[in-house]
């Protein structure tokens, strides 16, 4: 069945319930709104067929709120005063234990995997993971609880169309977004005088030794593919070969200084590299600090990723977890989060709320908030979205291995 996966729409049709729900309406709206909505992307991968609605209902039947929830998240993804969580506690009486324990998808998964495999609970009711390889493995291995969307009314009402029914998790079976961000090109305006427009700048010999690329296979593969003019979500193994060869040549020509994990932003703001693949939120924060960095999404396209909330198997308080996940979709709560996190929010209503707030502010605070509202890195326009692609998702374990080893040979040789 997965071999038919060239047509994601076909696949979705096969795995999805036929009844037209409110969510489907949103999804269709999303598809028509943008030339390239998130939901239109991606090969489905080795996921098990989505659980039957009866199974999901069976799991949730009789589950009660316990008055407690443990939320594992990335650091600095929640205001320091924990405002949203405190409000949730006051309104629901549910006590939130908030832990900043996820630093990286691979290391988090590497640690969680043996515990989940042994059928032991992680001790977390909500975890946050990016829509990459590890999230796909979590789904494929059955390590996640299918969500009961009847208990997620705020998500249904307030999530942007682009954040519903993503290809990496059809129907939001297992996850709803926490925040999104973009992979584009970050460059140092002190050294790069002409504004960068094209992805080809990363391959330009005039920046020899001053270009940073990302070490993550999915991230770098997307940029190789986009440079070749191939849409990553439709790419084939032959395309990967070409992209890897192109990236290998870029390395051999001495253009690449380094393949970065997360430390590229310091390098580009200091001028160790002049331009590099980068994430939007990082750059925005550096701009606020007055550092000479700019960020752009190449005209050939860029990557969009999403960090998602999900419930791991064995979670002790699933109902409380759903309530908290849904609570974060209240527009005023989402606005509070966005103001702090400074990445892309899945709740479009946030923009108006923040504009209203900015109107009531004065001086520097007002300027800062207005700059944020104006920033395409935090509130991308439709035109921005149209250029954004999701990650390549190989469809079998063998393909996955081939994909990884192709690009790891470039980044780790």
């Amino acid at each position, binding site marked *: 069945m997965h071999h038919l996966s060239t047509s994601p729409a076909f696949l979705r049709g096969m795995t999805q319930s036929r009844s037209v729900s409110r969510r489907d309406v949103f999804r269709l709206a999303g598809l028509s709104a943008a030339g390239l909505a998130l939901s239109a992307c991606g090969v489905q991968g080795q996921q098990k067929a989505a659980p039957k609605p009866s199974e999901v209902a069976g799991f949730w039947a009789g589950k009660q709120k316990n008055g407690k929830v*443990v939320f*594992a998240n*990335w*650091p*600095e993804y929640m205001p*320091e005063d924990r405002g949203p969580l405190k409000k949730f506690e006051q309104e629901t009486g549910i006590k939130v234990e908030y*832990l*900043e*324990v*996820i*630093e990286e998808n691979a*290391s988090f998964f*590497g*640690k969680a995997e*043996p*515990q989940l495999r*042994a059928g*032991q609970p992680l*001790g*977390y009711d909500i975890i946050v993971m990016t829509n990459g390889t590890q999230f796909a493995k979590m789904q494929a291995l059955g390590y996640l609880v299918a969500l009961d969307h009847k208990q997620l009314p705020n998500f249904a009402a307030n999530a942007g169309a682009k954040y519903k029914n993503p290809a990496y998790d059809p129907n939001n079976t297992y996850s709803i977004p926490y925040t999104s961000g973009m992979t584009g090109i970050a460059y140092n305006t002190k050294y790069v005088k002409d504004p960068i427009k094209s992805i080809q700048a990363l391959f330009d010999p005039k920046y020899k030794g001053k270009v940073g690329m990302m070490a993550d296979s999915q991230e770098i593969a997307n940029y190789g593919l986009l440079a070749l003019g191939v849409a990553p979500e439709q790419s084939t193994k032959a395309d990967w070969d070409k992209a890897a060869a192109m990236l290998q040549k870029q390395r051999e020509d001495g253009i690449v200084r380094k393949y970065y994990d*997360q*430390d590229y*932003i*310091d390098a580009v*703001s*200091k001028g160790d590299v002049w331009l590099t693949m980068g994430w939007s*939120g*990082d750059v925005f*924060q*550096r701009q*606020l*600090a*007055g*550092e000479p960095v700019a960020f752009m999404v190449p005209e050939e396209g860029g990557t969009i990723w999403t960090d998602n909330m999900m419930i791991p198997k064995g979670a002790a308080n699933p109902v409380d977890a759903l309530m908290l996940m849904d609570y974060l979709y209240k527009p005023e709560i989402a606005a509070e989060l966005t103001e702090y996190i400074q990445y892309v929010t899945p709740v479009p209503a946030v923009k108006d709320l923040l504009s209203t707030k900015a109107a009531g502010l004065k001086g520097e605070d007002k300027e800062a908030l207005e700059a944020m509202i104006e920033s395409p890195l935090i509130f991308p326009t439709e035109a921005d979205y149209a250029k954004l692609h999701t990650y390549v998702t190989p469809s079998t374990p063998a393909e996955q291995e081939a994909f990884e080893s192709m690009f790891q040979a470039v980044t780790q040789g």
Partner: protein
Amino acid sequence: MRGRLGDRLLHVYTWLIIAWLTAPIAVMILFGFNDKQSKSNTSWQGFTLRWYGELFADGSLTGALVNSLQIAVISTILTTVIGTLLGLALGRYRFRGKGASNFLVFAAISTPELVMGASLLSLFVSGNTPRGLLTITIAHVLFSLSFVVVTVRARVVGLDPSLEEAARDLGAGTWTTFRLVTLPAIMPAVFAGALLAFALSIDDYVVTSFVNGSTLTFPLWIIGSVKVGIPPQVNVMGTLIFGIGVAIAVGNAIASRRRT
């Protein structure tokens, strides 16, 4: 007399090495005073004492530091005791299992951290041991043990055993001999081993990240915040650790001068 100049050069050299090792600490201390305007703390934006006032503003960071200190102290004590005993045995005696012990000590040093962490996690998972302070401490003792053993053994080897024999002949018990003769003789190695164990523990990231469950240590907390910018409180805490260390060193030096 011949050695005077050489000694002086070596004195200067020793301080140069210490200065080199300490150079990044100076930068760290500086950025604890940085009046930064956004989340990133990598470019100098003016002087402030704000972060000292708000040192404990983030409870999770304070908690992580407290965890790290607890783990470091307990694991250092355990490691130093257990490691010193094995180091003594290996340096002093011939016995069955000596070769195997030497091999284990070597193997533990050469095990890549990630493999040690992952294999310990598997062990704790299959033993259904809840991950937390206890498992982190166990792991830290394991990876620092060999360093203490090797250091102590290097001291014990070639120590003159006749002193101990003399003590025993004079009627001293095993414990008395150990306390009054053996221990003072190997004390520099025990002290050095303890320093190494403490440094290894308080700085460990890879192994800890596997066996910590939901407990955070200082390095884990910092790594987690690298992506979005390390708050200056981290620099301040590092500065305080360093400052307390220097105070201890200076106090020790003054005390030793008084004794002379």
